[in-house]
């Protein structure tokens, strides 16, 4: 493996590359027809620790499918996907759920907050299924909310918040379980430009703190904020 060689030979090379979080090799995803849909036609993608990557593409390009594959919400038809070095294609559903909860933080376009729970509870929810003790959950959720600047809204219901605030809650929820990868799907799609800008600033800060981010978007403005951009067209990546 070239990456392993690079890491092992770090002394020899000028710059040691950080460890890869995501390694996709020859990944395909076909949806059986008729007609058969070839959503992903063979993708090789590596995302290294601390990277801020954007995946941009028009609708129908396969970017949603790629997001689901990256987020372990779907299984590739073919190819290898390693997350933190763990080969996921051989894992059973239960194990994949655990991996998903522990290693990936999701941020969705439509926030997906539970309306009937407080902001704090919404954030703490992401630690329920990964076995963080109750008391610790609440403490960590508070810290995460402070980090996104919503300390004053903890006991509010999501419906009382603005769109930008809701997305910040969703980000806090994604971060609080300390994932290896923050996966954002059109995070600014439902927001006005001011709120979108605020969210992108949060991403910048996270990147600066060393978080690995993958943002999937159709918006070039959003895409350009990332350190590295890849374009997906017709199920293949273009560099």
């Amino acid at each position, binding site marked *: 493996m070239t990456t392993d060689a690079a890491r092992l030979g770090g002394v020899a090379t000028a710059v040691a590359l950080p460890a890869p979080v995501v390694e996709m090799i020859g990944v395909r995803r076909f949806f059986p027809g008729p007609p058969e849909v070839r959503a992903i036609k063979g993708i090789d993608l590596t995302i290294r620790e601390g990277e801020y990557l954007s995946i941009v593409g028009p609708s129908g390009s396969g970017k*949603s499918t790629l997001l*689901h594959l990256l*987020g372990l*919400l*779907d299984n590739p038809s073919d190819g290898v996907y390693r997350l933190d070095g763990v080969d996921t294609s051989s894992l059973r*559903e*239960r194990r994949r*759920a*655990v991996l*998903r*909860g*522990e290693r*990936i933080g*999701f941020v*969705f*376009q*439509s926030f*997906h907050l*539970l*309306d*009937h*729970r407080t902001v704090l*509870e919404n954030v703490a*929810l*992401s630690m*329920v*299924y*990964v076995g963080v003790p*109750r008391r610790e959950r609440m403490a960590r959720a508070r810290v995460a909310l402070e980090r996104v600047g919503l300390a004053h809204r903890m006991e509010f219901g999501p419906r009382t918040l603005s769109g930008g605030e809701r997305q910040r809650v969703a980000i806090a*929820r994604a971060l609080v*379980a300390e994932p290896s990868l923050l996966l954002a799907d059109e995070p600014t799609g439902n927001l006005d430009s001011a709120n979108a800008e605020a969210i992108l600033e949060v991403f910048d800060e996270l990147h600066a703190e060393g978080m690995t981010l993958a943002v999937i978007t159709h918006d070039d403005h959003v895409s350009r904020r990332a350190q590295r951009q890849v374009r997906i067209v017709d199920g293949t990546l273009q560099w």
Partner: protein
Amino acid sequence: MRDLLDEALAGVSARPTRLVLTTLGTVLGIAALVGTVGLGQTAAGQITQRFDLAAATRVVVQPDDKAEGEAATQLPWDAPERIKRLNGVDAAGTFSLLDVGDDRVRSVAGIGGQKDGYALQVMAGSAGLFDAVRAQLRTGRFFDAGHDTRTDRVVVLGKHAAEKLGINRVDSQPAVFIGDQAYTVIGILDGVSGRAELLDGVIMPNGAAKTAYELEAPDALEIRTQVGAAQLIAGQAPVAIDPNNPSALKVDAPPVQGGVRKGVESDLNALFLLLGAVALLVGGLGIANVTLLSVLERVSEIGLRRALGAARRHVAVQFLVESVIVGFLGGLLGTAVGVLLTIGVSWFRDWTPILDTGLAVGSPLLGALIGLLAGTYPAWKASAIQPITALRGT
């Protein structure tokens, strides 16, 4: 586990109005079950109570007709006194049917259509007879031991006999003729709990019967016991009355508690249980329906939970626990309603409410079980939802 319960509770309490509506079916079902069974038990209790008072305290002793030869015996005249010495006897009195030959009964000689009189049954009794059969007077009084010993020619009329004879008052001391002998009517019976023929007859004290009709011995001894003592008295009576030859006496006593009564109750309860079961089935279908609706509505929540690391199992268990909670709440409320219903109806009808504690404790659990059954399909449905589908929507 605790987290699952918390999540389920939060899920259930998120929509209070719906929760109330969902539990409604179970509330009605359990209330119907508890109420009908409670009322069934209460009503059966009342039936047996009334039954008890009339029959379960009545013991009748007679000479055994089948006893052979020398063994044949007669009841002694002092049988009531002997019996009353037994603990548990409230009252006792003799009864005899008199053989009056062709003597007919008239009220006043020679009046109109009843010139020939009526062929009424003439009976004799000791003073304690009336108490022993719980006789009630329409008017006048019973005869007492004094009338008996003085051989006074007095009679008490059964109410049907009194109607035939056209006597409805006794304050003017009306007379009836039995054959050509006149007797003073001192009272009219209104009702008795045992030996209903008394209401059709003309009853005179033993003393008078001995004189007029040479009555040799009483036909039967009527005993009224305390509640629950009938069996005991029935066993002791022959020895107390005729210690030398107790087997020559025949004793009629009420059947041992249980038997018949249980049969009647279980029939009633089976019917009521069936009604409750139908109501519960409807309640269960209601829960299943609403839970399924709620699953469809919460698709994005399910997707989110899956994305946050919930396995299919977690999702299934959460919805299952939610519907169990709904069922349990419904069961709890229904039990309360059913108990109140039973108490309310009992109060209204002046009954003693009877309710199985097992029923009161078990019903909420039954509600929970129904919730479990009702939730199985929706829970499976929820766990089968793919997170992708769930998160794609808005």
